[in-house]
């Protein structure tokens, strides 16, 4: 009897050991057999490849660090494991642990921007200085975050969004600018239209249109009517907050392309300071719609500068200093301005923006920045 029990225990232990050995061997085999990938579409980031093995790298620890990151990035079924981890966190109510709040109605929100008056003051002072030297009408549009506007969708216990205070402070400091206030207009419209994507931190085209209309009120021109646009909808858009949250079963967003009536003769040039440049006749770069990251469909995403010319528009020449929020409002602005010159200071720093403004005869200046970038972008220092 005792011998029988012992045999049974040995068999069970052997089976357990064999199972775990087989599991480890299977993981190892998968690791070796599956080719390395250098980019994760869903996470929108480069993955680490096998590090270069040198004596100095081993002795100073860099090889070991890089190897650890490589193993994490290339682990078999990585996407599934990352997702399991995120759903497990959600199950444990660890909302916001990855910098993303899981709101109601499918919204994923970036955590709030931290107020930093010293940084904000410095950035606004640089903008003021540029606006004064340019001598043109200047407008500042600070875009509130989705978490601030849609606060009713935030989970219980989330940190307070202080975008209203940041925007008000920026408006007070920006004495060379007329401030385009969006919070009220967004609050009034949020029940009628979806102003922000659920899986991305950007505003939707509907949100951008409202911002364009508010700018028109401040700058005293008649905006193109909503009915004058032909709207094309594209499904299956997943944005930045989806990539960070790794909740892979979330429903995708619908991306809208609003084609203006005054756009038959549009010309768009996007360029970077390494000399790369391309010109096209469409503000929507549709090749991005077949890629995982669709947001660059608006003007090919971020570039050092972009110039849109629309000879049929009534207005003059607009210089827009912007972050990525500017990409989706620009097609609306091109309905009202003959020339829209967009500059992204994160990638435009060795040449003076004033020369570009002079070249295109700019008569209006618009700065479009999210609350995050108006506070934290260190690149206003290149504005001259």
């Amino acid at each position: 009897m005792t011998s029988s029990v012992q045999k049974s225990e040995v068999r069970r232990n052997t089976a357990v050991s064999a199972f775990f050995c087989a599991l480890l061997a299977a993981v190892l085999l998968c690791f070796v057999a599956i080719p390395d990938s250098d980019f994760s579409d869903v996470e929108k980031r480069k993955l680490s490849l096998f590090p270069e093995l040198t004596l100095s790298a081993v002795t100073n620890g860099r090889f070991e660090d890089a190897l650890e990151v490589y193993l994490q990035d290339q682990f078999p079924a990585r996407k599934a494991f990352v997702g399991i981890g995120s759903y497990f966190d959600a199950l444990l109510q660890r909302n916001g642990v990855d910098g993303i709040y899981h709101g109601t109605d499918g919204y994923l929100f970036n955590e709030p921007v931290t107020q930093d008056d010293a940084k904000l003051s410095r950035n606004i002072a640089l903008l003021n200085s540029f606006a004064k030297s340019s001598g043109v009408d200047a407008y500042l549009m600070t875009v509130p975050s989705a978490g601030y506007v849609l606060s009713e969708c935030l989970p219980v216990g989330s940190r307070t969004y202080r975008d209203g205070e940041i925007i008000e402070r920026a408006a007070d400091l920006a004495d060379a600018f007329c401030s385009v206030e969006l919070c009220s207009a967004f609050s009034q419209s949020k029940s009628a239209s979806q102003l922000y994507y659920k899986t991305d931190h950007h505003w939707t085209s509907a949100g951008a249109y409202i911002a364009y209309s508010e700018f028109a009120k401040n700058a005293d021109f008649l905006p193109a009517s909503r009915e004058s646009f032909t709207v094309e909808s594209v499904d299956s858009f997943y944005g930045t907050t989806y990539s960070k949250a790794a909740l892979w079963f979330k429903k995708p967003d619908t991306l809208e392309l609003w084609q203006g009536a005054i756009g038959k003769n549009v010309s768009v040039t996007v360029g970077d300071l390494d000399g790369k440049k391309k010109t096209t006749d469409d503000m929507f770069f549709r090749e991005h719609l077949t890629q995982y990251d669709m947001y660059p469909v608006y003007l090919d995403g971020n570039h050092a500068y972009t110039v849109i010319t629309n000879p049929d528009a009534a207005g003059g020449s607009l210089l827009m200093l912007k972050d990525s929020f500017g990409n989706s409002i620009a097609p609306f602005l091109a309905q009202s301005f003959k020339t829209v010159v967009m500059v992204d200071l994160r990638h435009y720093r060795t040449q003076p923006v004033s020369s570009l403004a002079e070249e295109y005869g700019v008569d209006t200046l618009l700065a479009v920045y999210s609350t995050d970038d108006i506070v934290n972008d260190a690149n206003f220092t290149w504005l001259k």
Partner: protein
Amino acid sequence: MKKLFCLIICSALLICAGCSDSAKVEESTAAPVTVSPSIDIEALAQEIYDGLKFDDTVTNVPGSSAIGSYFLPESYTGRCAYYISTAATPEELAVFESTADCSAEALMLAARERITSQSESYASYAAKEVPKLDSAIIYECDGIVVVCVSADNESAEQHIKSCLA
């Protein structure tokens, strides 16, 4: 026997943990140091720059630009030298002198924030450039802080150390 085995494993773990070196950047643990006025920061930066490899055109700009780029306090009075790319790549070289008001620790913290911010920015602009930022060098020696993002950070690290030795 089991207890002995556990003891050996625990000891090994503790010893191995002591051997690990996971920091990507070299941390400064020294007390505040006054940099000798005889050290020519511009010449040092030029020497470092001459031994680095860049994919982009990287040019020397006034050191004061680095105060803005790194969000250093406006009261920062230290000497600094700054080389930047066209912004098509994140490549740059910055050499800072720590001061009584702005320690090497503070400079390194500002450098880390700059690298993080650049990583986020380049992820949506030129993702292939992000690995250069992942392996950026932030090195401190005797109160001088060097920040380097180059095409070959592995060899850049050795070169920077030899220049500051």
